[in-house]
């Protein structure tokens, strides 16, 4: 039969993170021989992806892979796509609480591990004691909130972190200006602040800029989730000693293999089923038809950062 056609709809255009995710799709499709296109809205607001989903359905694509801007606003339009035989995969973020409206989800890591990982990383930087704060994205960003919940849990229950005191959680709405002001306010309001965790790419970059401007790199430690390109200069000049993320590229690769396999019947979309992906090894379909590209977060620091470019 003719080649499987896959479209990927990122949150919005011009976001470097999704550029590398796309690259993964392209390379995988080049080897698998599937047709790959991408269509992205200009802004990342809840509903901006809807017309694109409809249009792609109308174009008769076989697979829609999407990084949803909203956990539920897309339900109806996605259902319609699936009624018309389109395979719908959530990539990089899931429809939290609405998993029934997509066929499967490809997530980078087991998000339960992100929170503790971050806490441990910051702890190791500040000697496991002192005031710390969190600079997040928006107040109800589902992923960030999962992670923050896990962080609070770890701080509260793991004696290892007993001396680390969380003094504030603020939200920069993933907007550079706002994140910057929030970070500045943190530094001023909490003179004894030892560390900041910012589990969002915009936030961690803004915070790094602020700490650098205030020249507080040695008193206030910063870590979080960021892209190497975004963080490179701050790692180089020592503002940030280490931060974490995963490989968006691999998400693209995995999504492409899974989609094609499913369409060709070589993969069954059942919890517990496994399949092989070159370079990624054996992938197991877990709870809610979720699968991860990697077991642990990748930690970037002065040694390895130049090995990455995304």
């Amino acid at each position: 039969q003719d080649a499987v056609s896959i479209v990927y709809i990122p949150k919005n255009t011009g976001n470097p993170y999704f550029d590398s995710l796309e690259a993964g799709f392209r390379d995988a499709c080049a080897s698998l021989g599937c047709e790959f296109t991408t269509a992205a809205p200009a802004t990342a607001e809840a509903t901006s992806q809807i017309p694109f989903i409809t249009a792609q359905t109308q174009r008769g694509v076989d697979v829609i892979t999407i990084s949803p801007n909203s956990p539920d606003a897309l339900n109806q339009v996605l259902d319609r796509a699936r009624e018309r035989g389109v395979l719908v995969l959530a990539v990089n973020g899931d429809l939290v609480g609405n998993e029934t409206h997509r066929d499967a989800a490809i997530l980078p890591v087991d998000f339960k591990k992100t929170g503790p990982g971050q806490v441990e990383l910051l702890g190791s930087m500040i000697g496991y004691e002192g005031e710390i704060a969190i600079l997040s994205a928006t107040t109800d960003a589902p992923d960030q909130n999962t992670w923050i919940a896990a962080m609070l849990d770890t701080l509260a229950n793991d004696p290892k972190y007993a001396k680390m005191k969380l003094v504030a959680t603020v939200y920069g709405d993933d907007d550079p200006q706002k994140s910057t002001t929030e970070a500045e306010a943190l530094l001023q309001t909490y003179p004894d602040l030892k560390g900041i965790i910012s589990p969002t790419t915009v936030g961690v970059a803004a915070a790094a800029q602020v700490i650098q401007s205030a020249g507080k790199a040695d008193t206030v430690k910063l870590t979080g989730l960021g892209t190497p390109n975004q963080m490179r200069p701050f790692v180089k000049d020592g503002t940030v000693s280490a931060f974490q993320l995963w490989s968006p590229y691999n998400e693209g690769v995995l999504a492409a293999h899974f989609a094609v396999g499913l369409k060709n019947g070589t993969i069954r979309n059942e919890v517990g089923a496994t399949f092989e992906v070159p370079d990624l090894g054996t992938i197991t379909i877990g709870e809610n038809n979720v699968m991860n590209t990697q077991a642990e977060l990748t930690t970037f620091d002065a040694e390895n950062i130049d090995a990455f470019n995304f």
Partner: protein
Amino acid sequence: MTDASLPAPGVQNAAPARPRWQVLLVRPETGTLLLLVGAIIVAANLSPFFSDLRFILESSTYYMEFGLVALVLTLVIISGEIDLSPAAMMALSACVFASLFQAGLPIGLAMVAGVATGAALGAFNGFLVVVLQLPSIIATIGTLTLFRGLSQVLAGDRSISGFPAWFMGIDWRTVGIVPYPVIGFTLAALALAVLLGMTVWGRQIYQIGVSEIAARHAGVRVRRIKFGLFVAMGVTSALAGLLTASRLASVRYDMATGGELQMVLMVMLGGTYIFGGRGGVLGTFLAAWLLVIIATGMNVANIVVTSQLVVMGLLLIGSIIATNAIYARTQR
């Protein structure tokens, strides 16, 4: 005191009355119509998937809410004011509705409360413009920020859902193949066209737009009418907000973000004069469909969104140039 022996005076500045076909054809709406036809032809040639009425109608439902508000906005702009806050009013009244529903209020009452909120917000705008006499363009930029902020205070960043089935997916219910929102939009356009074109009330809106002071002197209740228009904006926005909520089956504070630009674009594309006193509902109706065709056509042809922005911009400017040119002609 009439003097029959007078030679009919004033012949010297008797202008040749414009031929009827000109009066009918040389109007901004005509331009919009031509653009619409052109757009359809282009879109059909851009992508084989476009020419499918069912699909176009389905996609159109994403614009009907804005279209609905744009119809009322047309009256506001003709009266010489402008309202940039409708998108924010949509969000806030929808958030009020959803929060109340979530708090356990029967959905019927919640909907009423939502509409009432819209009316109140519109009244607030009216108060600022009519009573405090702030320039509407800047005042509504203020309320735009305020209302959007309040909806965020109310709903945070989470999205509220879980509405009963009957409430959801109004855009999916159809008469024949025509979705409810499309029907509603069309009926509203008809009603407002009659109101504006054939009633005293409509005439007075034009008079206010041409010269507010003269209108007041002629006994037009300027304040009352303007206030009424702003309230109408609020109510319509609230209804549009409910429609959106039904379509998305969920409500978030960022509902319809940036919608105000789309609405103004529709009114302008429809050939309504930004300084008031001229224009009509028909044009806005056509312009709404023009936007539907362009956006849908480009999406289904996989034209990158960035060049869509460029096209929209050029379109707006082009339409204004045409509109003004035409008014310049008919101004004489």
